[in-house]
């Protein structure tokens, strides 16, 4: 069995204690809400998309260290990136979490940076839903933004 140090890496706890991009965005930004039906965690993601670029992104809600830090790292990773690249990052991340469902190829050249720290979550299958909560909600928010 995997030890806790695989799960609670320092960078994860850092994002949990000091979340980046926490907050809300006013219109014209749009938002989406996500639930983890298993544990009750809730998250809301706000995105501001202009000319095909995610110019700003925020999150709020409450949840465990994994869901919160994953959302925080996600916002850092996508802010300022073109939507197409954001989607590629989402895909790569979900693939790392073993929950990438659509069949198109993953962009192997993408570097997930700090997000790689979440790799260890895969050894704790119940927590995968925690790690991906913000990401699925981001996809909903992008849809709401017409992307």
């Amino acid at each position, binding site marked *: *069995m995997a030890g806790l140090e695989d799960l609670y890496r320092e960078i994860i706890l850092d994002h949990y204690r000091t979340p980046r991009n926490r907050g809300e965005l006013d219109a014209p930004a749009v938002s989406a809400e996500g*639930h983890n*039906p*298993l*544990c009750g965690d809730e998250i809301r993601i706000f995105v501001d998309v202009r000319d095909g670029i995610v110019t700003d992104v925020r999150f709020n809600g409450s949840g465990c260290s994994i869901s919160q830090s994953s959302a925080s790292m996600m916002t850092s990773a996508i802010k300022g990136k073109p939507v197409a690249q954001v989607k590629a990052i989402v895909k790569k991340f979900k693939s790392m979490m073993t929950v990438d469902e659509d069949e198109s190829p993953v962009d192997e050249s993408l570097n997930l940076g700090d997000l790689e720290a979440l790799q260890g979550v895969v050894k*704790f*299958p*119940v*927590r995968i839903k925690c790690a991906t909560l913000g990401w699925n909600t981001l996809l909903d928010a992008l849809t709401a933004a017409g992307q």
Partner: protein
Amino acid sequence: MSLDVAAIRKDFPVLHRLVNDKPLVYLDSANTSQKPQAVIDALSNFMSHGYAPINRSAYQLAAEATDLFEGTRSALAKFINAPKAHEVIFTKNATEALNLVILSWGRANLNAGDTVLLTHMEHHANIVPWHMLVAERGIQLRWIPLTHDGQLDLSNLDSLLQDVKVFSFTAMSNVLGTINPVQQLCAAAHKAGALAIVDACQSVPHQPTDVQAWGADFVAFSSHKMCGPSGVGVLWGRESLLEALPPFLGGGNMIADVRLDGFTTAELPAKFEAGTPAIAEVIALGAAVKYLDGLGMANIRRHEIELSTYVLNSLTERFGNDITIHGPTNPELRGATFSFAFRGIHPHDLSQVLDQANVCVRAGHHCAKPLMRILGANATARASFYLYNTQQEADMLADALDSASDIF
């Protein structure tokens, strides 16, 4: 490859039970099948060393149980060639699976005057829920009649399908043994714009299943007829249809959110699995799927065709006009399930006499009373064979039948 039935029989402990010093001749597998040691062991090992809740708790024991449970879902999806594991929904039996799709889909989509097409050989599980919708929503039922040898009379299929919203039918009759041309029937249903629901209770345990080749929309079957534990049924449905289907039972696990003023549903498959499921039984069903897969469903089907050939020939040779066997005479067109009338002896009395020789057959209407009326009987005796049955057991059935005349 042909089945090594002697080896298979060793896997089923109940077949070694002597009742009144005589071996058990179990010919009631269309009713419910016996269980191999691998399934019994899977159940008791899990309950002894791994029992835990699934989905809800984060600790290792629970994560392991969840993996095993979801493992059965994936194995079943492969077993019936379903495109996605989350299209496989666990229910308590095939009856609940049929009620789920019939009542949920029907209440959401059927209105007064809408027509549903059934057949004269349906099991009550594929009739009574429709009667409930007749009473609730004023739908109409139309029926496909049978030919003299117990096959569907498809001569007017296209006109029977006209304006039909749903065509719901059995893949194999539990009374006549008739195997229906599922692929053709689904194609005809879809051509007519109807939904195709397949009651596959009697076919999944006995032959390879490919829901995609069938082209079906929903397929229902039961664990207990395919060497698995009692208490588990399966509904498979196309993802898009399941997503559009309203939930059937409300409660834990099937929700995304619940507030004082309403709820939202979870994603597939949880949406249709309210409450604590048959955790251990689903896991042991995985062992049954593995067992059947190991033997090969095509081999099981071949064994049953050989057995059917022998049963049909030997009983007819021995008893001539004293026996009437219902259903198709061509073993390729039927399963090894034989309903019969014998020398005017009432089936209930017949099964009682057979029981003296430990030959277990079912007597009754087999949950198909409309079909019984069409056959002109209240009841039939039914001997149904499975992978563990032998030609020798067919002979024991014949010997026991002969002795029934001593009394009546």
